[in-house]
């Protein structure tokens, strides 16, 4: 206790906080401040006001982009969590060799360059892409399907494909840590495979599920590369809107305000995810 506020401790704490303050907190603070400024004649006017936020709240165009983005992120999160669970459950309890191979099979697409994954999916879905030309040459369709690319559906599909490893892996890794003893106990007490799943595996792998949903939601809600590259004019999202403010539209303060909105959404998702990851029985034991 005596050393609690000793000079050395104080100095060390100050150093650590200072490093991170400069590197991380200061830029975020500057960015937050900008969201209260405004543009006039392509110059940033450093006068504090809520004008950007008022514009955000009142303009239905922004509101609809916001709602559209949330909806998109929720859909992707839901689809990928379900698919992630199905794949993880299928990978579970395999023989050792297969087990390694399966982990690797999920890790490779995870590690693969983000831009290249988008490129590959775009190519696959594109008007001249393989899916269309295959369907055409097989005579299933007469003309290439235009609707596969450059719309919201394309954004959804690409997000799902690109993010899938991020839901499979955390779920699979927590599933692996569920002691097989508990599964045996449940079977011994009369539980069917389905009952074992819902009463033992699913609740015990909840932290992994929370991790998967949080990662996926945060990524899907904030991404702008995928909508930019496969979304076309219809696939407009919050991320893209922010990006435009720093490019063509050139309104940094408004862009900052939009990004603050994104931060609020993200942090809400993270806090909810944390609660899910720490269910009551774990909090009580802590």
């Amino acid at each position, binding site marked *: 206790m005596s050393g609690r506020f000793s000079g050395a401790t104080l100095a060390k704490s100050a150093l650590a906080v200072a490093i991170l303050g400069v590197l991380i907190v200061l830029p975020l603070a500057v960015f937050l401040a900008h969201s209260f400024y405004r543009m006039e004649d392509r110059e940033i006017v450093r006068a504090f006001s809520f004008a950007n936020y008022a514009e955000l709240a009142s303009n239905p165009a922004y509101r609809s982009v916001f709602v559209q983005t949330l909806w998109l992120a929720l859909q992707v999160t839901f689809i990928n969590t379900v698919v992630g669970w199905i794949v993880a459950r299928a990978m579970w309890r395999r023989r050792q060799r297969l087990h390694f191979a399966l982990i690797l099979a999920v890790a490779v697409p995870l590690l693969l360059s983000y831009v290249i994954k988008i490129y590959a999916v775009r190519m696959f879905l594109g008007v001249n892409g393989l899916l269309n030309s295959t369907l055409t040459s097989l005579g299933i369709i007469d003309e290439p399907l235009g609707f596969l690319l450059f719309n919201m559906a394309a954004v959804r599909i690409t997000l799902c494909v690109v993010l899938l490893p991020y839901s499979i892996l955390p779920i699979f890794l927590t599933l692996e840590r569920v002691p097989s003893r508990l599964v*045996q106990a*449940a*079977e*011994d*007490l*009369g539980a069917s495979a389905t009952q074992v799943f819902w009463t033992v595996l699913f609740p015990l792998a909840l932290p992994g599920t929370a991790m998967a949903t949080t990662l996926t939601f945060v990524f899907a809600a904030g991404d702008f590369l995928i909508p930019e590259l496969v979304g076309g004019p219809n696939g407009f999202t919050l991320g893209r809107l922010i990006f435009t403010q720093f490019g063509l539209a050139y309104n940094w303060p408004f862009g900052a305000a939009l990004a603050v909105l994104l931060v609020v959404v993200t942090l809400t998702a993270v806090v909810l995810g944390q609660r899910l990851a720490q269910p009551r*029985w774990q909090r*009580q*034991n802590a």
Partner: protein
Amino acid sequence: MVLRLDRVTKVYNQFTVLQELSLDVRRGEFLTILGPSGSGKTTVLQLIAGIAQHTSGRLLFNGKDIGRLPASQRPFNTVFQDYALFPHMTVADNVGYGPRIKGMNRRDLLSLVEQALEHVELGGMGKRYPAQLSGGQRQRVALARALINKPSIVLLDEPLSALDAVLRRQMQVFLKAAQRSSGVTFVFVTHDQEEAVAMSDRICVMNGGRVEQLGTPAQIYHEPSNRFVSSFMGETNALSAIVWSIDNDRVVLRSALGDLIAYKRPYYAFVPGAEVLLNVRPESVQLDVSGGAPNTNRLVAKVVDRAFLGPNSKLTLAFPQAQNLHWDVRTLGNHELPAAAGKAGEVTAWFRPEDCALVPASGS
């Protein structure tokens, strides 16, 4: 009999863990499977429970072959060594798991669980989580979780090995009482022979995937059928001997310590000339204090070591006729006695013919 294992063999990756093992479990008994670590005890329980599948042989329950039924459909429940309580469920939810899975309605379930918890002296603990309980309490939750399903057999895999000595004694008494009052058949696994003797109606001694002997604790202790059982069931003094002659109720033996006489037990199948191992428990060896000892089985020995053990003392005897042979003797209270006896620490020890057991010298 309620359950019969009929020449059951279990092979794991070409390694035979159980070799044509046969075993009958009687209705309502407390049967203990006793054996050293790695002898296949857990495997036997897992085969019965359906957690593992046997390679060959039959598993008969009330005469029906249940060998291919999944674990969930067998009327047995297991108390696992590490309890295997569900950490994410309260004590009440753990105990009520079986009935809930089978679709019992909430109200019946609630009162049933309440009753079950009272029965294991955990009334009012229902809302806690397993992590908030002590080892002994978790043990009792595991027991209640098994008993609530009214299984035909409860299988217990070394349930007490994680507990400290005092708690262990308490739980032995508790388990035994629970078995008596419920009338359910218990198949209990342990590697601790004292525990086995204290709790069981019958003991099945296992070694290397085989049954060495099956019998009451007294039979197993006093009438071991082979060297493994006699040495595994507590301390024993062994002596190689040859059967010299057999009459109605006595076996005369030749040994390095001279001629000895053993009471003939009905199951002995020795013929004169057979090599045997004579076993005498340390507490059955008497010291001749007043010179009134009988003439049979008298041994002159020297005390080479003594250890005070509290309620009794252990003396180690050596014999002039046999180098390297040491016997242990338990003396009650009068452990100072040998100091006064004979010249140069010599004592006369003896044992009654009915207090020794013969096992074949060869074999396990």
